[in-house]
């Protein structure tokens, strides 16, 4: 099917990708702009199969959104609420413990802990939360606190980033999720999330964590007001950071969900754009081991198709994920293991249940 790629005018990129030559920003833009979705998917699949063979990963995890109270109030977010708002909530440690305890019977390998930038919860709350989770469920991997939260915690502790990360790790933090990256461009941050940690700040937290031996993920929130050039700049910044540290595990493009946000006049991402973001990222981020199609964001049907457009991971049996749900995500709340296995097999891939660090828990 090389002919298809050549007919699409992407023959030179096919040669580059086959030879393992890194794509330029201009190459990335050409892929984004190509009307030939299948050809772009075909190119991404070459990289995908070189790095991950026929495997398609998923994880059995639990989401814990400890509080939606947030001082940033980003325009693209439907989750964050001001303190005092009727929809605001925060969990105390007893509630956190109860959340963990109520699912002890399930074979969960990871808990994903994310919340808002809370104005007055003390630093000790976060350390105690990690300890409480471990206390309830020893051995559970805690992937917690986006780089934005970590920067906030470092400020709270007053001990600097390195010491704060070390204390979080000592309290049980296992790895860092990829949220809060949004689009690094200062223009976008100025217009949508001016109070949030800068792109540079975000990358600094990630790289510092990597140097301390923590692995982390990276995201990009697309489909709002960003340009294609800004997307490529974002990917290029991630690729450069990964060249420095090698600490990123997975890149996760996140589709913007406009409902209930300050940008609700914008429309939802298209299926084409969802696949393009996965495929272009897979071609461009040659040093990222994994690309995830997060089915909660784009729906299980499109996530399945994405396994042929560069993605090798479709997240997992997510329960109680509130952040997308608040923004009108229409996906089912949770997929069962059987549904996930069937989706993966019908896409012609081999299902692998993984842990956070991509160790194989079970191959099916």
């Amino acid at each position: 099917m090389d002919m298809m790629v050549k007919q699409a005018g992407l023959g030179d990129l096919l040669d580059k990708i086959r030879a393992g030559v890194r794509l330029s920003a201009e190459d990335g833009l050409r892929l984004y702009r190509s009307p030939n979705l299948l050809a772009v998917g075909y190119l991404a699949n070459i990289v995908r199969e070189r790095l991950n063979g026929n495997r398609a990963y998923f994880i059995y995890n639990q989401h814990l959104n400890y509080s939606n109270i947030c001082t940033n109030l980003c325009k693209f977010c439907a989750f964050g609420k001001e303190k005092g708002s009727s929809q605001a909530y925060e969990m105390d440690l007893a509630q956190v413990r109860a959340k963990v305890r109520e699912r002890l019977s399930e074979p969960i390998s990871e808990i994903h802990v994310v919340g808002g930038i809370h104005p007055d919860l003390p630093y000790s709350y976060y350390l105690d939360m990690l300890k409480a989770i471990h206390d309830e469920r020893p051995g559970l991997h805690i992937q917690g606190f986006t780089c934005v939260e970590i920067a906030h915690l470092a400020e709270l502790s007053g001990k600097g980033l390195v010491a704060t990360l070390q204390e979080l790790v000592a309290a049980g933090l296992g790895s860092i999720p990829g949220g809060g990256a949004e689009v690094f461009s200062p223009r976008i941050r100025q217009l949508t999330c001016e109070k949030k940690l800068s792109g540079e700040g975000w990358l600094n937290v990630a790289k510092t964590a990597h140097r301390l031996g923590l692995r982390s993920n990276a995201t990009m929130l697309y489909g709002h007001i960003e340009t294609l050039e800004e997307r490529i700049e974002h990917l290029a910044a991630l690729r450069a950071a990964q060249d420095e540290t090698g600490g990123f595990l997975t890149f996760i493009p996140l589709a913007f969900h406009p409902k209930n946000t300050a940008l609700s006049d914008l429309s939802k991402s298209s299926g084409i754009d969802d696949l393009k973001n996965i495929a272009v990222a897979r071609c461009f981020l040659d040093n990222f081991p994994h690309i995830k199609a997060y089915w909660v964001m784009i729906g299980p049907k499109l996530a399945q198709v994405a396994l042929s457009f560069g993605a090798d991971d479709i997240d997992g049996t997510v329960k109680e994920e509130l952040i997308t749900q608040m923004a009108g995500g229409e996906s089912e709340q949770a997929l069962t293991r059987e549904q996930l296995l069937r989706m993966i097999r019908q896409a012609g891939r081999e299902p692998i249940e993984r842990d956070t660090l991509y160790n194989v828990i079970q191959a099916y």
Partner: protein
Amino acid sequence: MLELISEKILTGERISVVEGLRLAEQGDLYRLGFLAGAIKQRLHPEPWITYVVDRNINYTDICVSACKFCAFFKAPEAVGGYVLTNEELAKKIEETLELGGTQILLQGGLHPDLPLEYYEEMLRFIKSFDIHIHGFSPPEVCHFAKLSGFSVAEVISRLRAAGLDSIPGGGAEILSERVRSETAPRKCSADEWLGVMCAAHAQGMRTTATMMFGHIETMAECFEHLERVRNLQDETGGFTAFIPWPFQPANTVLAHLPTATAVEYLRMLALSRIFLDNIANIQASWVTQGGKIAQLALFFGANDFGSTMIEENVVAAAGVGFRLSEREIRQLVEEAGYQPRQRRMDYSLVEERK
């Protein structure tokens, strides 16, 4: 072998069932999409994707057929079945016209005792609103023939005289006797379904054809279906479009079966486009797949987004909740790089509304 089959397809040659099955077994998603896309491009070089503004009116849900894959019907002895009144029909039609609709998709259950005159009367009533009536799928026509004692051709000709404009392709399910006897034994046979379409085409009527896959059928039976449709089209040329969609199991007797996945849908759509070289149009099924996959369908051979379905009851009864407005359909089409154009049943374009 795959390369040879692909070359045949790209040069416009027809492929056999054996070749189609080989492609279904061994062709990857890119190959199927590429080949289907090439055919779509050849048949539809125009820069637009069409859709029709219409409403499904299901005049009754009372049905003697009791098909295992159906979540819509009520058995005649069950409580709660309905037959729409003229007032209800009028309201639905007026709403449709207000929304710029051009046609009504009129279908219902196989009611045990309404006479043919009842349907003729209903057609005359609807026709008084000056709207295209796309109605009565072949199982209904066969049922009317059985109840009235008229031949299928006579029934069609009487319905036409009363205002029927075209016949929808529903009730085809899988045109294979094994599958029909196991899932819908009381429904018209594959031969009868094709017989209705043949008779309608002979009277100058246009019809569509459908396929409901993803239940108990084999891939060979899907190709038996496609081949029978292709053969009739060679004879009559009367089909305007083909619409494949996957079985939706919730609330049916076959609820234990899993729903066909998006990848299976896109593959079957592409195979249909590739195999049915003599049918001009292939419709995407957003009502079963949602907008995002329907959008992708445009890269797997579909050139039409189907209907806006101002009202839809049959798929909704099977627990599938996708709804799209005309505005959303137009946007999905634009995002895929095409101009959205409203069409009529015969695929003539409706002038753009301001």
